[in-house]
């Protein structure tokens, strides 16, 4: 299955403004670069990964700065 199909089926939607795959309910976001650079199995593993549920989890190749995280958390809701 294509990575975009895997994300779509897991309720991730593409955010054109930020070039992110976002699931507000799971509070997770994948950068398009992370999706491109990782194999399907890794994407599935990260989708299924448990988080503490308090804040957003960002799957980026390079960790976003605290400032960018703060902005994204508020923009994404």
């Amino acid at each position: 299955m294509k990575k975009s199909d895997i994300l779509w089926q897991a309720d991730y939607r593409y955010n054109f403004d930020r070039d992110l795959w976002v699931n507000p309910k799971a509070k997770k976001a994948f950068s398009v670069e992370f999706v491109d650079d990782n194999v399907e199995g890794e994407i599935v593993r990260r989708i299924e990964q448990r988080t503490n549920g308090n804040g957003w989890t960002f799957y980026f190749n390079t960790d976003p700065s605290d400032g960018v995280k703060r902005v994204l958390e508020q923009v994404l809701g």
Partner: protein
Amino acid sequence: MTPKRTIEDHLKIEDLLREEYFELLPALRRLAMQLETEIRSLTLPILHNLRPYEQLVVKSRVKECESALNTLLGPKEGRTFDPDRPGGYSLLQLPDLAGVRVLVFPNNRLIQVDDALRDRFADWTPKPIKYGGGSAQAPKYFGYCNEISRNIRGEYQVVPMLLGLFWEVEHAAMYKFRPAANSKDMRNHRTVVEDSLISFENGMECFVRDNIGKYPENPSKN
């Protein structure tokens, strides 16, 4: 103690940049017009001597506001201005807020146009556009027009016409839809199109070279 910044900081960055854009806009328009006028004037002798099948088109443009913001943001993951970035952001960091594109057909006119403009823009910085898998390049320069502004850089480029027209559609599609730009398939499609266009342009140039002398220099002048 410095208070924690909030979402307003980020929105403020974007809004401040938009404000900066609209403050610069009158100068950007003047810069585009100045460049277009000068380039039209300097290429006029070439235009007058074009053969019937040859073309030379001069187009100026001012970068749109949102496009300028996106360019300033660059290909950064998450496409978000960092409120903590030291030094902040300014649109004046961009070299191509106003520019001119000269489209020529066939390719042998490209060098001629480039040469015609070099003296006037001798102090501008070259940054050629690479295409065809890096095997070919088109001239591009950026610099200041001091008559208009000592802060805003302008840009001009001289490109093969077929490729230039293709890029108008391709760049917008690929840059505004990152998954397409990153897709290996789409990159392959782009290379196939570029190679075909290059082949047509080179073919025309070869045909002209091989048959020069069999046709009048400029029949429309007869």
